[in-house]
């Protein structure tokens, strides 16, 4: 008799398996080795993709892993979580003639080799006496830390969580990205002498002012916060979850058996909503519905995520907006009242605005509600550094990565939004590199800095 917990554990095991050596070499040999390859251009971190693939084909695994991780310090995670069909594989010229090279799988094959062989690929640079503080040990912060350490900076990373890794360890569902991969990436960066202070919340354990005083430069890479209030009745009932926190729980501790056989409604249709919904399915929920006030066409989840959720049995209810969450006397969720919507005139963002159809209210009986309608911003921390921001999105000069405080640079999700950047791990990694390069350039050319 298999226990329920171990059955659930199996649901969270990484879904795709690694290529075999034969598969990898066969696929690598299919790569055309394009000149000025569009896959490189499509990669936010500009990995020299044909080169790393050629190296797999020639048996130069160390070189292959180095090529990847040189351009992308979080390349093992990105191999698993990048929306490759939107990026490198989508740009592969073979889309027009046969089928694209499985770049993500090959990248995983090469980075898995690096993980298992445990060779040293990068070394800390000779110290230049400069100190940099990085707030947040997510993809952006870690990427900046790796580059700065190679340039010879003394880098300290402040992380509020008990482990570094950020989204990788707390936000990306385990069946896409196991924590061991993230832990390995963190370990590589620690090996370069980067001091990661976990369980250290800036603003609580150390003030923003102290950091500004103690370091030559500061990189703010704090990401985003919890899901905001939907603004409907019943949000405080037992059984209403924040999708970010809901996924986080599946990453950090023993899996909850509370959802087995339950009916779950997810509010929102972005990639986080899909994560919440598919995690609910994998926690044993009997029925999971995604409620979205617009239609499939406006949905922000990637197409492959949508397909994945459908294969997991998630139901999509389009043009459906929640009106109120209904509880019982014990304060537990029993249902959600919704209203049918229709698409009206286009709004300022060009998308058709959803409008309620009067009198179309209806009730769906559910045991749990997961909210996935975006994320809040760490406004108080941003303000503690006295940085200019727009609705919690830190304003930066996109060329210099500098905030309104000349000593403070920002990258990752903290600068995502309002038309600035894209919320992908791989974008955050590139921004982290960029922030590191800008800091380094400033050091090398002090006279040119106004």
């Amino acid at each position, binding site marked *: 008799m298999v226990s329920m917990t171990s059955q659930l554990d199996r649901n969270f095991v990484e879904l795709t398996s690694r290529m075999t050596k034969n598969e990898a070499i066969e696929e690598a040999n299919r790569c055309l080795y394009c000149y000025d390859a569009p896959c490189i251009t499509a990669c936010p971190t500009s990995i020299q993709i044909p080169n790393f693939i050629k190296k797999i084909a020639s048996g130069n695994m160390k070189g292959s892993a180095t090529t990847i991780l040189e351009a992308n310090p979080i390349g093992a995670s990105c191999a698993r979580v990048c929306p490759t069909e939107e990026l490198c594989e989508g740009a592969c010229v073979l889309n027009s*003639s046969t089928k694209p090279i499985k770049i993500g799988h090959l990248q995983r094959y090469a980075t898995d080799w690096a993980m298992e062989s445990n060779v040293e690929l990068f070394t800390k640079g000779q110290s230049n006496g400069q100190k940099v503080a990085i707030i947040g040990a997510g993809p952006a912060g870690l990427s900046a830390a790796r580059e700065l350490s190679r340039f010879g900076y003394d880098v300290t990373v402040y992380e509020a969580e008990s482990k570094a890794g950020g989204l990788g360890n707390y936000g990306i569902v385990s069946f896409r990205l196991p924590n061991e991969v993230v832990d390995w990436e963190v370990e590589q960066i620690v090996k370069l002498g980067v001091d990661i202070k976990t369980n250290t919340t800036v603003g609580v354990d150390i003030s923003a002012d102290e950091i500004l005083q103690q370091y030559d430069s500061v990189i703010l890479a704090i990401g985003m916060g919890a899901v905001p209030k939907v603004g409907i009745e019943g949000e405080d009932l037992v059984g209403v979850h924040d999708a970010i926190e809901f996924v986080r729980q599946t990453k950090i501790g023993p899996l909850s058996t509370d959802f087995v056989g339950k009916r779950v409604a997810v509010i929102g249709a972005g990639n986080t909503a899909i994560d919440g919904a598919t995690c609910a399915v994998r926690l044993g929920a009997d029925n999971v519905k995604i409620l979205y006030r617009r239609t499939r066409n406006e949905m922000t989840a990637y197409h492959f995520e949508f397909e994945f959720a459908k294969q997991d049995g998630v139901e999509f209810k389009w043009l459906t907006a929640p009106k109120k969450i209904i509880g019982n006397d014990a304060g537990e969720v029993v249902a959600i009242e919704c209203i049918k919507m229709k698409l009206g005139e286009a709004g300022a963002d060009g998308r058709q605005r959803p409008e309620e159809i009067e009198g179309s209210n209806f009730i769906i009986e559910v045991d749990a509600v997961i909210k996935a309608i975006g994320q809040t911003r760490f406004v108080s921390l941003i303000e503690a550094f006295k940085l200019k921001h727009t609705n919690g999105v830190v304003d930066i000069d996109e060329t210099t990565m500098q905030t309104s405080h000349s000593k403070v640079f920002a990258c990752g999700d903290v600068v995502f939004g309002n038309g600035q950047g894209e919320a992908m791990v791989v974008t955050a990694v590139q921004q982290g590199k960029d922030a590191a390069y800008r800091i380094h350039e400033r050091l090398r050319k002090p006279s040119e800095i106004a």
Partner: protein
Amino acid sequence: MADLRIDLAGIKSPNPFWLASAPPTNSGYQVQRAFEAGWGGAVWKTLGEPILNVSSRFAAVSYNGQRVAGFNNIELITDRPLEVNLKEIYDTKKRFPNHAIIASLMVEPKQEKWHEIVKRVEDVGVDGLELNFGCPHGMAERGMGSASGQVPELVEKQTHWVKEVARTPVIVKLTPNITDITVTAEAATRGGADAISMINTINSLAGVDLDTWNTVPHVAGKGAHGGYCGPAVKPIALNMVAECARNPLIDVPISGIGGISNWQDAAEFMLMGATGVQVCTAAMHHGFSIVEDMIDGLNNYLDDKGIAAAMDLVGRSVLRYSDWGNLDLNYKIVAEINNDVCINCNKCHIACEDTSHQCIDLYSESDRPMLKVREEDCVGCNLCSIVCPVDGAITMVERKSAIAPMTWNERQSLIGSLSR
């Protein structure tokens, strides 16, 4: 249904596909399985004084994941007693009277040795003889195989000795390990050969093991050169066949050998003058059943072309093969890129830019990447169309020349006549 039968100097077989003298034709069991699979003939693994073989004999070269692009061996001639081979040849011929069985022979370059073995194999009913003057390893060190085959006088003399007693057609198998194969081919013709076959294997070392630094293959840590064959040698073999076919002094039929892997290769050899082909590596790679597509494909090709018989293909391209000095200096082709088919891998651009004549430009048209050939700089080298991974994206097209055709030889004789 085309007539696939061939007649090579009087040796008849139901189709042009023979197994070459090699490991696949080592025994009656194997040759009978081959005939059941459809092979038209078999050249029995070379008979002679039984030898000793070494362990670890083969090696192959993979290219970009494609196995057996080339094949290397250090196996010698038959290691089984002559009586056993003769009995099995007799049994096989009895079971398959319409299939061709040719005995490959190799003995010391002595008249009586040749006389003796020819009589013995002809007594069991072979359809022809093939003199192995090609084997490049082991036997050559004992003065046989390619050691004989590299000396035109020895080729001629030994062929002559065989012809003194042979009642069946005699094929002389030539080694490519020689500067000009037509010299030994002519010697064989002078010696009275009824046909020649080529090529035997090319001296080779397949590789070096990068961990142990041993040769590949090795025998207890030591290696020796082997003979190279398989798809990689096809162009070398095809040229040698063609050179012999267009040489008026070599007026005997040719059995083509060297990297033939499918019906297309076979048809190419036949167009270049081979009256049928011999195959080994393809069978060693895939088994005897690959002959099925060879037969079927050749038949369909002949039907599509409206050619009634396989023999009608033989030599049809020979006149198109000549010396460089006879090529028209004023013929001009250029590359033309079809951007609707092009997938923008830019391989043509970088190949031309880095390694040829810098005449393919990258540009963009309403944000779409495009490629264009600057015709005035294009020399028609074909490189771009060779590296292009997509059929139809690059076509080499003729540009009519305003100048009349003229070859180098014509030009030189014209200059000569003007200066007189």
